[in-house]
């Protein structure tokens, strides 16, 4: 049973008929995620899939978990705008957490298709570590630049 985190599901539009395939795009930074979403949308359209942007925002100690350094309203507005730019069904899940990797691992449905913005590097990076953990959990992980470029 995963420990509960602060979750904000931002209903950009109602999920009326859930698509059979869901691409989970991990939010890293605005520019990188926007680029990734552009190509992921093309991919999703071809497959009849929908996109979920997954943003796990870390709140550092000693701040309380509900008082993130970036205003929640600001993040919501940004993510909502990002989702609305897309031409395919796009949803946003926004979590405030203490640990990004743990949170993402907890909230992903089994055997998800996860898209990580950026490129796979040969040296250890946070995204490489996340990808490794997600693969170990049984998810399919794609680095956006590697797969779609």
């Amino acid at each position, binding site marked *: *049973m*995963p*420990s*509960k*985190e*602060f*979750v*904000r*599901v931002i209903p950009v539009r109602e999920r009326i008929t859930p698509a059979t395939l869901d691409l989970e795009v991990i939010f890293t930074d605005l520019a990188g995620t926007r680029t990734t979403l552009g190509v992921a949308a093309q991919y999703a359209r071809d497959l009849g899939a929908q996109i979920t942007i997954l943003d796990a925002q*870390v*709140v*550092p*100690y*000693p*701040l*309380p*978990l*509900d*008082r*993130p*350094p*970036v*205003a929640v309203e*600001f*993040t919501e507005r*940004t993510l909502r705008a990002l989702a609305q730019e897309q031409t395919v069904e796009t949803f946003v899940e926004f979590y*405030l*957490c*203490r*640990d*990004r*990797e743990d949170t993402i691992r907890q909230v992903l449905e089994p055997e998800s298709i996860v898209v990580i913005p950026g490129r796979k590097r040969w040296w250890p990076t946070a995204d490489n570590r996340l990808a490794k953990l997600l693969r170990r959990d049984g998810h399919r992980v794609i680095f956006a630049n590697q797969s779609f470029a």
Partner: protein
Amino acid sequence: MKPPAATPQAPTGVSSTTKVVVATTVALTFITFWQAAAIVLNDLASTMYYIGGITEQAIGKSAPWMVLAVMLFSYAVRSVYMESCSMFVRGGVYIVVKDSIGPTVAKLSVSALVVDYILTGPISAVSAGQYLGRLINDIGDSTHQAFLHFEPNSFSVFFSVIVTLYFWWSNIKGVPESSHKALRIMQVTTVMLVILLVWAPITLLFHPSKLPPLPTPTNLHLTNESLGWFSGTIFSQISFVVILVAIGHSLLAMSGFETLAQVYREVAYPKMKNLRITANIVCTYAVICTGVISVLAVMIIPDSTRSMYYDNMIGGLVMNLVGPNLLKLGFHVFVVIVGVLILAGAVNTSLIGVNGVMNRVAEDGVLLDWFRKPHKKFGTTYRILNLMTLLQLITIIISRGDVYLLGEAYAFGVVWSFALKALGVLVLRYQRHDQEYKMPFNIRLGGIEIPIGLAATTSILFLVAIANLFSKKIATTYGISFTVVLYVLFLISEHVNAGKKREQRTDLEKFNLDHQPEVNSQAMRARPGCVLVAVRDYRRLWHLGKVLEKTNLRRHDIVVMTVRHVSSGAAEYDLRDDQLFADYEQELFSHVVSMAEKEGKSVELLVVPAVDPFDAMVQTAAKLEATRLVVGVSARMASEELAQRIGLAWERLPEPRHPFSLEITNPDRPSTFVNLGPHPPRLWPEDVDRLHKIWLRLSELPGLGFKIHHRDIVGIALRRLEKELETSVPEELATTIEREIHKNGS
């Protein structure tokens, strides 16, 4: 007891058009005591890098004993914080002082805390710069490279400015580090400490050395600078004053305890026990890393050269250990890496902390909203960050890399925020009586509790704070100036904000609402077998308290539901969000979250709109496949009637009906348990005897023997009663049953 039978009918409680609301909040993430201790120690243990040098410059060679004494005194301060946490799950110094003494002193205390945070950054960064600069010089000397040589103070200023600007920018961007790094940093620090604690005694075996002189008044060599305004007065001749001044110069070794109050909210169940363990780990670790290492440093570094190492005492300790130079240099590099990690972390924490404190007071209307304007691109409160970083940079530049100077100034914020916090907790002893933990050493005189331990700790802290006021000229000038400026800023802000209508209550939890068309266990994240607690009145939540206390979350999740009553007409239409989750639900769930936090257990929150609350409760329990539905005793009806109405609602559920038990909780009496749905009855002892006697008689009949079981006899009896129910006069049967109930006294 089985509820009376009723004709099954279609569920009427929850309209198919209305939604249920799953409410989530942040209160429900809990950490272990190891994680909590690591977070506190990241702040508190960083002082070991500079406290030894600062205190020895101020009070002489006896300084390590004073540091050790302060670290032992930290166990008392630990108890103050534990008592405070037992009353305020989310209580930092501001909340505690505001609640106990009032807003004016609270503003003073938060000003002192802000001074503490502002100084934490520069002292940590400058100290890290000193260690790094001097290491580079050592490497330069060892390798005979002239270009690897820097003036340590200038280097530390340069390094501190870079580090501060780096963390300012990362905070402006709002890119925080994962909290798991705290644990990793402490693991690395522990490795360093273990090596030191093994290597240093080996060194003492080869080069025996005397312990530092005991901190008696004759051994305390206070300079004119460390006596401050006491110098040349009669006070400098009074031993008690001299000892207080010496403690004052060592007290900043304890800075960082405030983090204990910040993490308490997230400490897991059993909360108070885990807090005690956390605090004990923190204090013991601090005694070893700050106290013992300071003693070892004075013993191992020769008196003739120790003054060279005042700004990098651990570096000096390493370079004076026995062993090959290359090995010592390697370990020195490791020590500096750990130091830069932990001290740079403290710089970051200071910016995060001060930003958090300023935002917190702004929520209370004590700071102008202008400060909280979010950054256009990043959404962070950049004006607060800019202001605080600017103050830190000015402090770094004015200090010119002098750790002693910064330490002197730093002490002001540390000691006054401790003293005011302790005073707040002491005052609360006479204002509140809900302390789950009390600092030891309390006696009762004439029915009045005298908190000797707490009063003594508060007195010591105040005496030291007052001694500091007169002995630390820099701290007093710097601290009072900053405190006054901040206090005036808070006063003006409060005055300006008083004119604005503040509609939002800050004491209520913020909830995120997930509207679902129906109750389902996946959305609730509750496993089958959960405990469902129905609540409605936030003043009557004792049943939730009992559930929180008794439930093992490894086995059962807890779901807390409230029924939003809607009229039968309204149920035909979709309700607006604010109708489903109104102010009352927010207040009710804020109390629920507060109780859950205090217990350190997570709960799932659910609002179900319904015409009939009993239908809503049983339908929810059925859909979640709960094992137990817990309700409080009703003020409007007897427990039996409550059980009956819930039982009837259960009978109206469509087949197959999920069986579960109903617990009706009374604050003064044991709970009443009722099994809903078919279940084996608990027979009266005399009925069990009767059943057995009948069985004995029947088993003697030829042909039956031991083929007959007790259950067969019950079956026959029930079928006969059923037949009688159909044929006899119901009133006669009711009279018989009523007589039976009275006879059994139920």
